[in-house]
C-alpha cells in the first residue's frame, strides 16, 4: 500500500496558514506559504510543545503562538540562537490535493 495519505485539497489550507491533521502518530501541522509550497511538521514546538499550526506563517517559517520562537518549515529547526528541532514529514501536491507521508 502507498505510504502517501490523502490530506485535503490545497485550497482548504489558507495561504500563509496551516491545518491540523490527526494521524495515528499524533497531530501534524500542514503549512502552505505564499508560493503555494506545502510543508509538514509535528504540531509541537521544540520549546514547550506549542501548536505550531496556530502560528503566523511567513516566507518559509512559522512563529510559534506561545512564546514566538521561529521554526523553519523545511527543516523543523528553530532559528538561531534558539535550538531544538521538531520532526518534519514529507508532503506533496497531486492534482491539487495534499498528500502526507508519515514514514520518515
Amino acid at each position, binding site marked *: *500500500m*502507498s505510504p*502517501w*495519505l*490523502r*490530506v*485535503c485539497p490545497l485550497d*482548504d489550507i*489558507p*495561504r*500563509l*496558514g496551516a*491545518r*491540523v*491533521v*490527526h*494521524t*495515528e502518530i499524533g*497531530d*501534524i501541522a*500542514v503549512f502552505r*506559504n*505564499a508560493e503555494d509550497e506545502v510543508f509538514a511538521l509535528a504540531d509541537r514546538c521544540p520549546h*514547550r*510543545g*506549542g*501548536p505550531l499550526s*496556530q*502560528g*503566523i*506563517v*511567513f*516566507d518559509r*517559517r512559522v*512563529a510559534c*503562538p*506561545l*512564546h*514566538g520562537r*521561529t521554526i523553519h518549515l523545511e527543516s523543523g529547526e528553530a532559528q538561531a*540562537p*534558539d535550538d531544538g528541532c521538531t520532526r518534519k514529514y514529507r508532503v506533496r501536491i497531486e492534482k491539487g490535493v495534499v498528500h*502526507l507521508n*508519515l514514514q520518515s
Partner: protein
Amino acid sequence: MRRMKLVAIGNGMAGIRTLEELLRVAPDLYEITVFGAEPHPNYNRILLSPVLAGEQRFEAIVLNDFRWYADHGITLHPGSKVTCVDRQARVVVSADGRQESYDRLLFATGSVPIRPPIPGTDLPGVLTFRDIADTQAMIEAAARHKDAVVIGGGLLGLEAANGLLARGMNVTVIHLAPWLMERQLDATAAALLQTSLEQRGLRFLLNTQAREIVADDAGRVGAVRLNDGAEVPAALVVLAVGIRPNDELARACGLHCERGIVVDDTMMTYDPRIYAVGECISHRGISYGLVAPLFEQAKVCANHLGHLGFARYTGSTVSTKLKVTGIDIFSAGHLGGDDGADEITLLDRGGAVYKKLVLKADRLIGSVLFGDTADSSWYSRLVKDETPIGELRGRLILGQPALGSSGHQGEQNAAALPDDFEVCGCNGVCKGTIVRAIKEKGLFTLDDVRKHTKASSSCGSCTGLVEQLLASVVGGAYQPRSASQTPVCECTDYTHEEVRRAIRDHELLSIPEALRFLEWRTPNGCATCRPALNYYLLCAWPGTYRDDPQSRLVNERAHANIQRDGTYSVVPRIYGGVTTPAQLRQIAEVAEKYAVPTVKITGGQRIDLLGVRKEDLPRVWADLGMPSGFAYGKSVRTVKTCVGSEWCRFGVQDSTRMGIELEQGLDRVWTPHKVKLGVSGCPRNCAESTIKDVGVVGVDSGWEIYVGGNGGTKAEVAQFLAKVALPAEAMEYTGAFLQLYREEARYLDRTSHWIHRVGLDYVKRRIVADAEGRKALYARLTEAQRDVPDPWALRVARRDPEFETISARDRYPSERNRNESMAESLPAR
C-alpha cells in the same frame, strides 16, 4: 556579469560593520577586498579596557574571525597597510607591495592617538592605548615595572589607569583640566569619581601639565617632569590626551579633508567613487569617537554602496559611560550652566550618589549620573525623543521606578548584582549569561541581547536592567535607540509612523500592496510586522479593509485565548459585569456540557471558561448565545464597575449604568493594544479606575475622567484628563480619547506608553480644548464600530475551516470512523 570591486581600507569596527550591512542588502554586488594594518581579524576595540584590566581574554573579543571573511568571499590582507591611493588609475598600493584596483573605495581608517608636543614621547616605554599591540605592551610592562603615569584624565586615560592598577602598578594620572572627564562631567560628578578612584589607589594630579618625559640611565623612560619642575617616576607612560581622525592617506590622495575626511549625509566623500565611515570622517563638522554613531553610518553607507540610495545620516546624539568595573557613571547631552536651562539635582555625598538633570522648555536636554545609573537609558531616551516632561517633572529625578514598576524584585542596580541573579524572570536568564553573551558574541544593542539570550524579549519589565548590563560592558557603544527611529521590525527600515503615513497618503489597501510599496526586505513580512500592518490598514480604512486572519495572532484569529496546553479560554461579554440568573445558568450548562475543566472569575469581573478545545469553540459559542467578550484581543476588554449609587451608601453616581453604556458604546473595535476601563461611583474608587486605560470616577457634580493607567509589569497610575457633568459627555470624551489612541499610537503601545511619548498636554489639547475635534474623533469611532458583527455569531452562522481538523485518510478509514463517532458522542454525555 563582472562584479564591481570594492576595496576597504581599515579592518576595524566601522569598516567591517559596513560590509556586514552591505552583505545584508546586496550580497552579490561586489567582489570585496579588505586591507588591515593590524595583523588581526576585526575585533571589539572597546573591550581592550577589560582585557587590560585582566577581566577578559584577547581571543574572546574577536568579532569576525578569519573564517568569516572566507565564508563571505572577502579577501583580507591582514598586516597590510595601504600607503598610496591613485584615484586616476583607481588603484591602491600597500606597504607590502600589493596592488588592488577598485570601482568603489571605502575609507575606514579610524583615528590616531594624539602625541602631546613635549620632548620624550618617542622613548621606549611610552605607549598609547589604541590597539591590541598597545594593550599587549602595557600588560608586559605591568609585569616587569612598578610605576606608571597616564597623561590625560579622560575616558580612555581613566580606563587605562584602572587597568594598570588592576595589574598591580602604582598609577598617577596627570590631567590638565581642573577636573576629570571635563567634557562629559560637571565638577561635582568628577569629584565623586575622583574620590572613588582614589579609594582604589589611583593618584591624581589635576591642573597639571607634563612638560617633558625624561629617560633613565638605560635610555628607557624614567620619569615625567611637570610644569612646576617636579618629577613623577615612571617606567611606563601612557599618552591618552585625545585622538585625531586618521585622514593622512586621504589627504595624500587629494580628497577634501578638514579635521577628518569630509563626507555628506550619504557617507560619500568629494570623490563619488569613494566613501568613508567611522572615526576618520568629518560629518557636518563633527567626528565621532564612539561606536554607536559609527554603526549608524555603516548602515547608511551600505545602503548607498548597495545601490538602494535612500538612507541619510544626519548625525547622532551620544552618551558616555565609563567602563570601570564597580563605578557607575553616565553622561548625556548638555551639562547645564547655560542660560535658559534649569537644573534638577540630587546629591548624597555620603552615599556617593549624584544626579543632575538639565531641562529646557519642558524637555530634558541632558543628564549626569553618578553612583546610580539605573535610569540612564530612560533619561537618554527622554532626551532623544524630546519627550514633553509636563507633569513628570516632580518625580523625574526619582527615576522611572518612582512611576511604579514590578517584576524584578525592585532591583534597579544591575552592576551590583551577582552573576546568578535572574534578570529576566519570563525566560529564566541570569546576569552572568547575559554578560557573557554580550562579551563573547560582540553584542551592542538591546535587540542583539534579546535575540541571543531571550532576556527582555517577553514582558519587557527587565529591559532597564538589561540595558544597564549592556552599558556597563560596552560603555558608550550602547546607545538606547530613540523610539522615534525604531523601525517596525527587521523587515524594514521604516518606522511605525512612516508606515501609517504611507498607508494613508498613498492609499495602500492591503498588506501585499503595503509591502511592495514600502519595499519590504522579506516576501511576506514576519510575525511582528504583519499584525501591525493589519491593524494600521483596518484603522485607516474602516468598513473597506478586509481583515487578514493569517496576519493575526492566533487569539484574534480564533477569537479565544490560547492556553499553555493548546486549549482555549472563552469569556463571554457581560456588560459592566452585571449578569442575571438565567445567564449564569446558561453559562453553567455550557461548562458542564463541554466538560470545561476550570470556570473562573477574571480580574476584570467576567467569567472565564478555561480548557476548551478549538474544534468545540463554535459550538460553545452557539450554546452560550452571548457576544464575544474580546478577552483575547487588542481591543476594549472590560469595563469594571462598582455598585455605585444604586446600592452603595457612599455612591454619588450610577457607576454601573455608566459602565454598561461605555462597554456597549466601545466594544468590537480593535485598538493598538488591549484597553481596560473602570467606573467608580465615588472617589473611594472601588473599581480601581485609576489604574485603567480609562478610569471614570463619579463625584458630586459629575464625572472625572482619568487616562493612561494600567496594572501589568509596570503599574501606571492614570492621569487626570477632564471633568464632565453628564454621562453622555463622559462617553464622548472616552470615545474620542480611544479614537485618538487608535489613530496615533503604535501597534502594541498601551495608552500609557503613547501618552508618555506625546505628553498629556497634547492629549488634553486634542480632547479637552478642541470640542469640534473631539466630536469628530468620537464620530469616527462610532463609524468604525458600526456594522461590525459579533465575531462569535459570525462564526456560528458560517462554517469556518479554521476550527476544523482533518484526519489523514485512505489508510485508516476504520480508525477515523471510530474517532469521529467518539468525538460526536463526547459532548452529548
